[in-house]
């Protein structure tokens, strides 16, 4: 008969060693542990981050005023309602909190869809709007994306951050997912599975349905971006150090990139 797992630990390292021991399958991954601590106490410290007005103005920037609450919300340590109520209290005017609350509603929306789709969140909800049939997308995630060795400073940094910290900014998730599906022509499912292994907020609803949104199997068109967009929202952080600056695959106007990436008339 199995036993109760331990609840007393000398320190965090003791806990980490124990978890690694009782879940030997984690040896298939790098032994990274996030600085983010689990639990309600840690979540409450992040409540200070809730600044709905600033959020509305900066959310799409990598250094914007996002809350980092997603792992706690995903595991029900904090409820959407609690976060919404706090945001409304902090907003001088109700409309200042509108953008933030709309993002909370995205989670609610994905959860409600999950309720009706169940395991169907792993299937293409609609056809790809890229002009390509589903079987033209590879099933395997390329090793250089998993390892962060593509040579593209941004993509490699996102891959590393995902594996090391279990968190990526929303925009970085979108860029990385778009790169996987549209530039590398890999099925969104392969990328979604990879994200779920690592994201502390990994959730089959928010994750898979966002991947489908990027892929266009749950949106009216594929999501893609260009270097200028990434550079602006990251304040040049990656582009500055990238050997491929000026000749990277994200270079160009949207019309030209669209022609290159898709077979849309």
């Amino acid at each position, binding site marked *: 008969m*199995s*036993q*109760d*797992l*331990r*609840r007393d*630990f000398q320190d965090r390292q003791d*806990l980490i060693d124990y*978890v*690694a021991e*009782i879940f030997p*399958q*984690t040896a*298939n*991954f790098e032994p*990274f*542990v996030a600085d*983010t*601590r*689990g*639990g*309600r106490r840690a979540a409450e410290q992040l409540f200070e981050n809730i600044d709905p007005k600033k959020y509305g103005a900066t959310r*799409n920037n990598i250094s914007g005023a996002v809350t980092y609450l997603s*792992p706690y919300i995903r*595991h*029900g*340590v904090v409820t*959407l*309602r*609690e976060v*919404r109520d706090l945001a*409304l209290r902090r907003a001088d005017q*109700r409309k200042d909190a*509108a953008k933030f*609350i*709309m*993002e909370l*509603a*995205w989670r*609610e*929306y994905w959860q*409600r869809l*999950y309720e009706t789709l*169940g395991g169907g969140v792993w299937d293409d909800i609609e056809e790809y709007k890229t002009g390509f049939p589903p079987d033209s997308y590879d099933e395997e995630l390329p090793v250089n994306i998993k390892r962060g060795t593509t040579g593209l400073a941004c993509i490699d940094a996102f891959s590393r951050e995902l*594996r090391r*910290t*279990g968190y990526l900014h929303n*925009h970085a998730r*979108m860029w990385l997912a778009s790169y996987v599906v549209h530039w590398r022509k890999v099925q969104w499912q392969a990328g979604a599975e990879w994200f779920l*292994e*690592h994201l*502390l907020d*990994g959730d089959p*609803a928010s994750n898979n349905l*966002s991947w489908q*949104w990027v892929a266009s199997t749950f949106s009216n068109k594929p*999501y893609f*971006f260009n270097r200028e*967009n990434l550079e602006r929202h990251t304040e040049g952080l990656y582009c500055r150090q990238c050997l491929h600056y000026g000749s990277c695959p994200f270079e160009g106007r*949207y019309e030209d990139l669209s022609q290159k990436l898709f077979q849309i008339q």
Partner: protein
Amino acid sequence: MNTIIWVHEDCLHPTGPAYMAYPESPSIFVFDDAGPVMSLKRYVFIYECLLELPVVIRKGDAVQEILGFARRHSADRIVTIATPSPRLKRIQQKLAQSIQLEVLAYDPFLEFTGTVRLERFSQFWRTVEPYAMLEEPRSEGDQEVAIPGSNTNDAAAGS
């Protein structure tokens, strides 16, 4: 009636509905052998959440572990929290074949019980926005709706 609480990974709230309704009842969490494959940091995060709950932590076959815990506490009822996860729902169904199962709703985000269309977020938002914003519900058709990604290809809004 003797009650135990089954805590699962969708509700690790220290004052979640089950703990509020049954403050005296013993509770169990099971790392299910049939659960998803995850890297170390995800297990550590969940484990740290559990250490703030008054919960017995086990690893194994979820149904067997929960029923065994119920037997050890001579329980005739299991209480848990609703979840959209198909795997957790299957566990609920199996438990319900052996013992009385009470599934409590999770603190709802929206005080809205009507039906809402889910084909696209914009439809959903149009219906629920006043409830999400805690405003007086407005009549249909007088609201501006942001559709994610419709403005530019950088799809800055939404998803």
